[in-house]
């Protein structure tokens, strides 16, 4: 079963509450998404660690129900 965009967003925000999450349905098929996550909690972490936090929030769905989720993460830009 593919996941709905808002479910992905909800799961990420539950685990990373300060995250700003944007989701794009790349093909409009509810199966290929790109997610952009910006969170202060990413600061000082490597990209691998940031992505691991996102995958963690998705509780094992990545690589299963979610086979095509492109992830891009960053800490907010310094003001």
């Amino acid at each position: 079963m593919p996941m709905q965009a808002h479910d992905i967003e909800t799961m990420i925000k539950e685990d990373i509450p300060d995250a700003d999450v944007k989701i794009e349905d790349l093909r409009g098929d509810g199966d290929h998404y790109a997610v952009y996550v910006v969170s202060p909690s990413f600061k000082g972490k490597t990209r691998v660690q940031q992505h691991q936090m996102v995958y963690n929030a998705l509780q094992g769905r990545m690589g299963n129900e979610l086979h095509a989720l492109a992830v891009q993460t960053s800490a907010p830009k310094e003001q």
Partner: protein
Amino acid sequence: MVDQAVSDRISQEIKDNEVTLYMKGTPVFPQCGFSAAVVQVLNHLGVKFHGVNVLEDPGLRQGIKDFSNWPTIPQLYVKGEFVGGCDIIREMFQTGELQDTLKEKGVEMENAA
């Protein structure tokens, strides 16, 4: 849980090869668009790498995910260190960070420009 034999195999492989790509298919014939994208980046930079086809070995296909704590394939290792999957490699290539990382780690690039 990481299977010990698989884990030992991976540890050895990423030690024996400067650059190792765990992928679906082979460098010449990738069988997944995400794997193909990383192969393309490495070829573009002229980096020699060891490709490992996880489709030939179900134990490895799951084992590499457990080993790296990373849920998807491809996975790129440079000098024993996990650098990232397809999204990260693409992003790092575009920003030039991948080239910097490879240079820092002393990996030869034939087309480093």
